[in-house]
């Protein structure tokens, strides 16, 4: 049964997101800068065995989504810490509706960021060899991961006791994609980092996208990516539900 509170709260989350200057800068400018920076600044020095722009797109996507979700964590923390929480509670608005609104807006904003990354990539020579199926797999894997990171961000927003703390935690989490196959091949890393890189969600998502976009064999990576994403979603939802009830005292 749909909750009457969801549409107005989704509309609210969209407005807050669109009018959050920092958040929109992160969503719209960061993709351009990162894409250009990695391809032109670092790309020449990194040997991946393919053209670097074709290699790096999934990595830049993940980093942008990571930063974009950080905005969501801060927005949720602002709600939790602010006076509006008491009003919503005294109006019997369910926490799931409030957080759900932010997650929907977060997914939308991150997908726009992702589209921008792809557009810039094409402009500077990104030429994937994927069929329609390959694109669909890549888009599906990415969209699911965007949803996962948005829920994770919401959970972080609730865990943190203040918007500043949420910002700090989200900032640390946004480094996770760097320790993956995002920018350099995992085989070039020291053994300890390689173990981390090979067993974390970013690598699974990136490898699945890279393979599907470049017409390679996707195989287990896609399933790993899906399982990771679903696990993150499940844990984040459970965590935010429990924490929300505890925080909202």
């Amino acid at each position: 049964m749909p909750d009457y509170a969801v549409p107005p709260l989704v509309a609210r989350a969209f407005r807050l997101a669109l009018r959050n200057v920092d958040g929109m800068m992160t969503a719209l400018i960061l993709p351009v800068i990162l894409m250009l920076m990695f391809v032109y600044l670092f790309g020449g020095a990194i040997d991946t065995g393919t053209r670097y722009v074709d290699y790096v797109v999934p990595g830049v996507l993940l980093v942008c989504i990571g930063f974009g979700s950080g905005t969501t964590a801060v927005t949720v923390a602002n709600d939790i810490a602010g006076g509006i929480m008491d009003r919503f509670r005294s109006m019997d608005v369910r926490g799931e509706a409030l957080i759900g609104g932010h997650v929907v807006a977060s997914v939308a904003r991150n997908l726009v960021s992702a589209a921008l990354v792809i557009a810039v990539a094409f402009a500077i020579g990104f030429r994937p060899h994927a069929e329609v199926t390959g694109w669909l797999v890549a888009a599906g894997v990415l969209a699911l991961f965007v949803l996962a990171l948005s829920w994770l961000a919401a959970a972080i927003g609730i865990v943190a006791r203040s918007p500043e703390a949420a910002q700090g935690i989200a900032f640390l989490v946004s480094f996770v994609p760097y320790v993956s196959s995002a920018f350099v091949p995992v085989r070039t890393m020291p053994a300890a980092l390689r173990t981390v890189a090979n067993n974390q969600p970013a690598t699974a998502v990136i490898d699945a996208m890279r393979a599907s976009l470049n017409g390679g064999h996707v195989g287990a990576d896609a399933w790993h990516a899906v399982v990771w994403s679903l696990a993150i979603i499940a844990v984040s939802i459970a965590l935010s539900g429990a924490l929300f009830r505890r925080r909202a005292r």
Partner: protein
Amino acid sequence: MNEQIRADGLTKSYGGVRVVDGVGLRVPAGTVFALLGPNGAGKTTIVRILATLTAPDGGTARVAGHDVVADRGAVRSRISLTGQYAAIDELQTGRENLEMMGRLRRLRGRAARARAAELLERFDLTEAADRRVSGYSGGMRRRLDIAAGLVGTPEVIFLDEPTTGLDPRSRQAMWALVSGLAATGVTVFLTTQYLEEADRLADTIAVLDRGRIVAEGSARELKRRVGGARLELQATDAATYHDLIDALRDRVVHADRGSLTLGVATDGGASDARALFDEIDPDAIRIASFELRTASLDDVFLSLTGDRLHGHAAESEIAHA
């Protein structure tokens, strides 16, 4: 008379500290009730218990006919709470905030829009309606905040320190607004640290000190408890000041060593004042100056709790500066 708020024996502790300690209240429908007390007296905790946001450790409370613990949903649909911290979105316009609250109160799109427009008009915010709240003044925010609470046409309105932080003019406007609310028949429960505010707005005032209600009644009844007026006496020197305090003992309603002044309750009549002077200063050498003042609720608070309200300690010094 129909009671809209009825609480008995409410208690609440945080970390072993009892912040609400056996509070009982009765608020008849359509009246304004003020909970008066200094910072940390437990005012906000009581409001949060009555508004269903905090569960009491002990005691019971019924608001708008429903139990605040067992029947929380029913209470929530009949009340509004405007807290000390603005519960509106800075990044939305005034109109967007109110329309959203309407939708969250289950009004349909058109009804929510109409209700928002009506409240904006009533709270003198029509001109600013389509500007973002981040550009509003403190007084405008507070008005919008209260308007947001009224979207669902509540029966009981809780206002937690509605004028704290407002400039004098906005405070006057807020008082007019609260009086207007009371005139529409809703029950208003407000908290305040300002004696003048409680005096101006409330039918009944309860004085809260360290989690307990130490007095309750109309402003007039409370003032009667310390006499109708207060004679402010300034001693000629510190030794005399202490002599006077020793001589008058319980009759001193406040004393300020810095300015060597002390206040004594009196009925305000000349014979009472003369008798007092004859008693404590027969040779007319110990009192440097005096002033007759109408008893304030501050005096009430002092005589009930032995402590001054925060923020009012400077009052006597100003009067004699």
